[in-house]
Every structure is written in structure tokens, then in C-alpha cells.
């Protein structure tokens, strides 16, 4: 449900001219809901940015999300698998 909610909010932001990336924890939900840019992370529910108190991992997830914003050759919707 959380995955759908952030995807739907992302679409509203994108419609108003804000470029978005939505982290997603369930690949099949991302495929069905289709946020404009979705980064699927292979972490358990409750851990979208990885382990607590692990800034290195949290930054790695963020960097993957930022690269999606910078990507030029995408056709929406974009779903990328995060590789730790």
C-alpha cells in the first residue's frame, strides 16, 4: 500500500513539473502502479534506504535515485533495479 501511495503522489508532483524518483519495495506493485521513475530496492519492508545508521548504504541508494533523475535516454515509466 505504501508503494502505491508514494507512486500516486509522485505522479501528482510530476504532473506539476517536479521530477520525481519513487523508491519501491515490491517490484510487482511498481510494475502495476507505474510511478514515473521507480527505483526497486531489494530490502525488507520497513527498510527502504537500507540498514539503520549506515550512511554509506543510504548514500548509495540516494545516488542511484539521483542518477535516474539525470538519465536522458529513458521512456516513462522507468523501473530500475538497485544493485547494492
Amino acid at each position, binding site marked *: *500500500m*505504501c*508503494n*502505491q*501511495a*508514494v*507512486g*500516486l*503522489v*509522485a*505522479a*501528482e*508532483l*510530476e*504532473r*506539476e*513539473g*517536479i*521530477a*520525481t*524518483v*519513487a*523508491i*519501491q*519495495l*515490491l517490484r*510487482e*506493485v511498481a510494475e*502495476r*502502479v*507505474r*510511478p*514515473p521513475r521507480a527505483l526497486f*530496492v*531489494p*530490502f*525488507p*519492508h*520497513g*527498510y*527502504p*534506504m*537500507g*540498514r*539503520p*545508521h549506515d*550512511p554509506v548504504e*543510504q*548514500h548509495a541508494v*540516494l545516488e542511484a*535515485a*539521483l542518477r535516474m*533523475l*539525470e538519465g*536522458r535516454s529513458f521512456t*516513462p*515509466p522507468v523501473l530500475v533495479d538497485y544493485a547494492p
Partner: protein
Amino acid sequence: MGTTSEFSLSLRLFLKAYPWRRIDPVPWTPLAKPLSECRLALASSAGFVAPGQQPFDAAIRGGDVSFRDIPADVDVRTLADTHRSESFDHSGLRQDPNVAFPIDRIRELAERGRIGSVNRRHLSFMGSITAPGRLVRNTGPEAARRLVADGVDVALLVPV
């Protein structure tokens, strides 16, 4: 890995039959300038509230579609997890709210110049929304209007 096998049987059956809301057409905003010049806002669905804010209401049928403005200078350790869902492990984000609301990391990105600036507010939702009609019609567009008024260029959305 996030899979539905983490969930109870009844939740898995519910999700299997659930009519997911398909975004169609998919809106698209390309990045208009380098990220080092962009203002970034976070939106989390972890049900966090800042000190003094109303908790989310798990009793609302179909889900609580309201959101809270989280000020950019919030001390992340003061955020309270008011998400009522039992279908995920809350212990990680209670130890370190950056797990679902990475505001400390976003500030570091701005200090480093990877992004231009951190918006003055961020958005907190509670994600257990099974009936998302009011989210799509009302609070989602309202959230977008606020961030547009703030001059936000890019947003990162984080579910739990």
C-alpha cells in the same frame, strides 16, 4: 528483499486480489537543469510526525490521506513513527528515521554540492491507503501545489 512472503496469509490474499491503481498516462518531467542547481524535497509514507503534530489516524476507513509538513531543520531523532501497520518491521526506522526519511543524507548532499538546496519543508504521509481516491483528487494535488510554490525541482519519495 521486499516480497509479499513477508506478510501474513490474509494480507497476501488481500494484495493478490487488490485492484492496484494504474497511473495512465504516466506524467513525465525531465530534469531542466543540473542537479547541483536543483531544490529537493522528500516525501515519506512512514507516518512520521514532528513534535506537536497530530498523529495519523489509522481508524479512517480506506486510509488517512492527510499529510504533514516536516520542517527542513527538524532533528530527525525527534520524528515519531505513528504508522499503525503491522505488516512491516518498525524497529529500523525507530532506531534511525533516516531509513525512511533520509533528511540527514539530503543535507549532506547539499553540503557537498551534489544537489542545489534542501527545500524548507518535506512531506509525511501514512501509507496504509487502500482507497486512494481522495489522495489522487485532493491531498496529492495539494502536496504538489505546496512544493511548486516552494520552488522545488526534484522530489524523492520513500515508502515503507
